[in-house]
C-alpha cells in the first residue's frame, strides 16, 4: 500500500489570502466577523459573517487556489494535466438565478475549473454539506493508497451568499452575540465565513521521486454515520466516535499519540456537546488531555469548504509547532470536558493531529495527519 502525503496546499478566507495568512490569523485568534456588505441583510436576525472584502467569484477563487496548490507541489504541466480533480461545493454558484434554459450543476463548475486550471479529468464532485471536503480527501487518499491514482487535487469553496445566509438565519443557528465560542459556556451558535482551499494529495513515494518533500502525511481517515436523525448529531457522538476510531486504526496509532485536535466545533450548543462526547468515546482519557481548538471561531463556518480550510490550518500549525487558539472562549462548559486552547498559541509536543468534521444527515469524518 502506498503512503499518502500532502504535496501542496492553498487557501483564502476572511483571515487573508494565502495559506500563511490562515495560520497567522488562527494562531492570533483573529475573529474577522463584521456586518455583511455583500447582500441586503436588514431583515435578518443576525447580520455578521467573516467575509473577504476583495473576494472574486467562487469559480475564480477556486481556480486560484488549485493553481497555487499545484504550483507549491511543483507539478509540471504534464503532471498537472494527469492529476484528477475532486471538488466540494454546495451547488453551481447562484444556480437558481443563472439557470435560465437548464439547471446548472456543480459538475459543470468542476469541468470548467479543470479546463481553466489544466488539471486532469474531474474524478468526483461532493455535495455532502459540511463534510464534503473531508469526504473528498478520504476518497482521494483511498485511491492513492491502493494505487488507483498517484495524485489527486481536492478543492472546495464557499463564499457567504444571500440564500444560505437566509436559511441559516431562519434555522436560528447563527450566533446572536457576534462571536463563535466553541465548547464555551454562553455559546449561541455558528457564524458563516468565506473559505476556498485546495490540497494536492500524492503518493509519498511519488513526491520523493520528484525530488520533493511532502508537507505532511495523511496517515488516517474515517467516515461514519450516526443513524440517528435527519439533521441533529447523535447526542453521544456515536458516528463521529466511529469515524475517529477508524482513522486512528488506519493510522496505526493510539489516542495518546495525538498532539492536537482541530475540532468541528461550530459553537452550536447541542453540536459541541455531542462532539465532546464523541471525542471522549473515541479517545478515552486522552480526550481531556489533548490540546483542542476549533478554528471556526476565526475563519467562520465555510460549510462545504470547512474541512479543507481546517486541514490546511492543521497541517500548517503542526509544521510550525504552534497550535491555534480557540477564539471566543468565555469559560469551560461542564458538558465539554476538553483541553481547550484558551490562550495561545500553544506549542505542540507530538507529530500527529486529528481533524474532525460533521454534517447534517449524521455524516462524520476524521482525518489524521503526521508532520515531519
Amino acid at each position: 500500500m502506498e503512503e499518502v502525503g500532502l504535496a501542496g496546499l492553498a487557501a483564502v478566507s476572511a483571515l487573508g489570502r494565502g495559506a500563511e495568512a490562515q495560520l497567522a490569523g488562527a494562531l492570533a485568534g483573529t475573529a474577522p466577523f463584521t456586518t455583511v456588505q455583500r447582500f441586503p441583510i436588514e431583515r435578518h436576525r443576525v447580520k455578521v459573517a467573516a467575509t473577504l472584502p476583495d473576494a472574486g467569484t467562487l469559480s475564480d477563487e477556486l481556480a486560484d487556489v488549485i493553481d497555487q496548490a499545484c504550483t507549491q507541489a511543483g507539478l509540471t504541466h504534464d503532471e498537472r494535466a494527469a492529476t484528477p480533480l475532486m471538488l466540494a461545493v454546495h451547488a453551481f454558484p447562484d444556480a437558481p438565478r443563472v439557470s435560465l434554459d437548464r439547471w446548472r450543476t456543480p459538475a459543470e463548475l468542476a469541468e470548467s475549473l479543470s479546463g481553466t486550471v489544466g488539471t486532469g479529468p474531474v474524478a468526483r464532485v461532493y455535495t455532502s454539506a459540511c463534510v464534503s471536503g473531508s469526504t473528498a480527501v478520504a476518497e482521494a487518499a483511498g485511491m492513492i493508497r491502493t494505487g488507483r491514482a498517484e495524485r489527486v487535487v481536492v478543492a472546495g469553496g464557499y463564499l457567504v451568499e444571500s440564500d444560505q445566509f437566509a436559511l441559516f438565519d431562519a434555522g436560528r443557528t447563527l450566533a446572536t452575540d457576534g462571536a463563535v465560542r466553541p465548547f464555551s459556556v454562553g455559546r449561541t451558535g455558528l457564524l458563516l465565513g468565506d473559505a476556498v482551499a485546495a490540497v494536492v494529495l500524492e503518493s509519498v513515494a511519488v513526491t520523493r521521486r520528484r525530488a520533493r518533500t511532502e508537507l505532511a502525511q495523511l496517515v488516517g481517515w474515517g467516515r461514519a454515520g450516526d443513524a440517528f436523525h435527519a439533521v441533529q448529531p447523535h447526542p453521544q457522538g456515536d458516528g463521529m466516535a466511529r469515524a475517529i476510531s477508524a482513522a486512528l486504526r488506519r493510522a496505526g496509532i493510539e489516542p495518546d499519540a495525538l498532539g492536537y485536535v482541530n475540532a468541528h466545533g461550530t459553537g452550536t450548543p447541542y453540536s459541541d456537546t455531542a462532539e465532546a462526547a464523541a471525542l471522549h468515546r473515541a479517545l478515552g482519557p486522552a480526550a481531556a488531555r489533548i490540546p483542542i481548538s476549533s478554528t471556526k471561531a476565526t475563519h467562520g463556518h465555510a460549510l462545504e469548504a470547512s474541512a479543507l480550510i481546517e486541514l490546511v490550518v492543521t497541517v500548517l500549525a503542526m509544521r510550525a509547532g504552534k497550535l491555534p487558539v480557540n477564539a471566543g472562549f468565555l469559560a469551560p462548559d461542564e458538558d465539554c470536558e476538553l483541553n481547550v486552547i484558551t490562550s495561545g498559541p500553544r506549542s505542540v509536543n507530538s507529530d500527529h493531529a486529528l481533524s474532525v468534521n460533521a454534517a447534517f444527515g449524521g455524516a462524520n469524518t476524521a482525518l489524521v495527519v503526521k508532520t515531519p
Partner: protein
Amino acid sequence: MIAAELTVVSQASWPEPDDRELPPVPGFILSSFNPLVAEVADRCLRRHYGEPPLTPERGGAVAMIIVSASGDAVSADHVARTVDAGSRVGPLFFFQSVPNAIAGHVAARWGLGGPVVCLCPTGDPRANGLAQAAALIEDGDASAALVVLVEQESQVDGGPAGAAAVLVCTEGQ
C-alpha cells in the same frame, strides 16, 4: 473495474407500475426531491432486509449515497425567489437545504451507520454511485451501500422527476 466486483442485492425505482402519489415525508415540504429519495430507499431496503430498523450488526456499516445532478432544485429555487422578494425563508427549508438531511432521515429510520455521502455525478450517475460504493467498501468504512439516484429533470417548471435505488455489497456479504 472495482464497481464490477459489487453484487446488486436489490433495486427499486419511482415510478414503478401502479405508482400514483408519492408519499410525503414528515418535516420535508414543497419539493419532490426528499420524498423521492425516501420512497426508493425504503422500497430497496425493504426488498432485501424486510422491516426497519436493522440491528447494528446488519446496518452499522451500510453506507448511504445520494447521487444527483440537480440536487433539490425546487427548494433552492423557492429559497432564491423568497430571498429576492425580501421575504423570510421558512425554517423547514433550512433543514432540507442539503441532500444530507434526507440521507440522514433514511439512515436513522433503517439504522444505517455507514458513511453518508452526496455526489453530483460527473458522468453516468449510476456508475458514479457504484464507484463511490465500491471505494467505501474496499477502503473498509462500509460493508454495503445504498445508492440512490435522483433527479428533478424539469425542476423549475414542475416537470416529471424520478429516482432509483440500488443496494450493493461485495460478494459473499
